[in-house]
């Protein structure tokens, strides 16, 4: 046997992965099954519904370990390999357990030059967690995100794959974290502003100042 077969160059997935959920937990309710059937009916084959179903599973279980992927595969009568392939392709599907709050701070180029890295560094310090990791208390996962499509209100971040927080400042972040700690709804709206906010009663950023130099170098880390 060639050496690379015995010692593969890449780590293969564990054939007997540790299970996070018990048999009883690993089911879809009738309600959820009906939703899945609804998605399946919208596509010529059940393959099309896999992304929606993975979203549903992630909402329910918090993340997508192998046994959840198997559950999705069984529900849609698809090969496990296909579901595994899809789940691992997209960044928003969590393959490992994350904190209660997942903070995606955009540092892509508009945000980069409007202080995105300052926001990231402020959160790193405040939550005592490095980017890409979950805090020791298990409450916060801090991630660096690519452009989230809100460059006009940079710097910004997304909370739990859901609402956006625009025009971030350290004060705004303090407020946000306080609300999260207290379990209250987030004190802002995702809505961005129309062209003539005065006409429309909007609130386009008025406190924009020239960035005089960054506290944190606006630099991405080398991808490993």
């Amino acid at each position, binding site marked *: 046997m060639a050496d690379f077969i015995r010692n593969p160059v890449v780590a293969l997935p564990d054939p007997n992965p540790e299970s996070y959920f018990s048999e009883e937990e690993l089911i879809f309710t009738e309600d959820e099954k009906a939703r899945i059937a609804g998605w399946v009916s919208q596509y010529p084959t059940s393959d099309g519904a896999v992304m929606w179903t993975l979203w549903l599973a992630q909402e329910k279980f918090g993340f997508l370990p192998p046994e959840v992927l198997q559950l999705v595969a069984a529900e849609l009568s698809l090969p496990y390999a296909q579901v595994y392939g899809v789940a691992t*392709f997209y960044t928003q599907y969590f393959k490992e357990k994350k904190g209660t709050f997942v903070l995606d701070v955009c540092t892509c180029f508009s945000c*980069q030059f409007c202080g995105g890295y300052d926001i990231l560094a402020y959160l790193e310090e405040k939550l005592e967690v490095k980017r890409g990791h979950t805090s020791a208390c298990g409450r916060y996962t801090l991630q660096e995100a690519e452009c989230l499509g809100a460059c006009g209100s940079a710097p910004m971040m997304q909370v739990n794959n859901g609402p956006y927080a625009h025009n971030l400042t350290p004060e705004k972040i303090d407020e946000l974290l306080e609300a999260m700690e207290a379990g209250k709804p987030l004190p802002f709206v995702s*809505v961005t502003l129309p062209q003539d906010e005065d006409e429309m009663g909007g609130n386009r950023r008025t406190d*924009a100042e020239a960035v005089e130099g960054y506290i944190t170098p*606006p630099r991405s880390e080398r991808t490993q």
Partner: protein
Amino acid sequence: MTKAGNWQSYERVLLPPVENLHHLDVYRAHGGYETLKRVLKELEPQEVTAQMKRSGLRGRGGAGFPTGLKWSFMPPVKPDVPRYLCCNADESEPGTFKDRQLMEYNPHLLFEGILIACYAMSLNACYLYVRGEYASWITHLEEELAKMYNANLAGKNMLGTGHCMDIVLHKGAGAYICGEETSLMESLEGKRAYPRIKPPFPAQSGIWGYPTTINNVETLACAPLILGKGADWFAGIGAEKNPGPLLYGISGHVNRPGVYEYPTGMLITDLLEIAGGMRGSKKLKALVPGGASVPVLRADMIEGVTMDVESLREAGSMLGTAGMLFLDEDTDMVAFLRRVAHFYHHESCGQCTPCREGTGWMENLITRIDDGEGNLRDLDLLLDLCDQMEGRTVCALADAAAWPVRNTIKRFREDFERRCRPAVWAVNA
């Protein structure tokens, strides 16, 4: 007089200043869906496509392909062969945030456009692929879509015409590459989103192998305007060869960033003024006129340049998505390029070696220069790398990664050279 004509008195049509226009009843009260009804009753499908051709509309998704022409590529209808429309709302190009604004404030204009396109090409279903990050806006679209179905504006026997047109929302999950049309189709089919080799083009073999047309959100939202107000009206707005209203997404070091609707062909300098000028009265250093993939322009290159396909090509860049990033004099172009390279390395799907490895080496080399450990010859190595990547891959992501690298180095060479170790060492140093 610029190409944009009398833009000071331009009245917005894509994002008109109407409160709660996103509600179906408000949209209808402002004449919404009347165009669709008229089109269904009075026009033949071919006439709709002909109007689209006459309007001169070019796709707003980045490539700028003439929309009417694209629609006419659909093969003749065959019984039992389904055909599809795909609306590309995957908007992930850095610096672009116009489609989200449109879906937020005027979703029914998009839906109406989708239905008109379905009629023009005799399609029964449209998949609206929205990027997963736009979760809040997907919920928003779902609500409005449900109202439409209740009002019989879509679905079986829509508006009592006997047509059946469905709009299906599809939620992505965070991958830039899904914006590429064939990748989007793979993603819809529930696979890993690897772009396909073209040909066959989507009109021959698209989703599940069936004829498919794919258009951007803003492109489709222009359809009701063209058919409602006339192709000539549309062709008369803005730049002659690239007409129509355009959503400019302005970001970066300006006082009032945001999405602005104006005719195409606006002077860049006018747009900068509209956006409140540079923050802190600093000087402009560089401009990215259409999202991360297009070549960056130096401040001295924008004089007299207008925002349309022709003028920007002459200036040495592209219109792309019209997501404009203004950068001020303090901007570190090496850090800028490092972040851009990081983006492409992160988003490469990994299918083609020149792209998968090339974007990685690009990031490594630029990081090395940025860290002060680069050599002058690394710059030429980077340019050589761009040559090795361009045109050698399945999709255009590798080109999109190479263009900004090549042009940023060319146009800001001193910034890079200053950070590199000298080529020749002083003898007694």
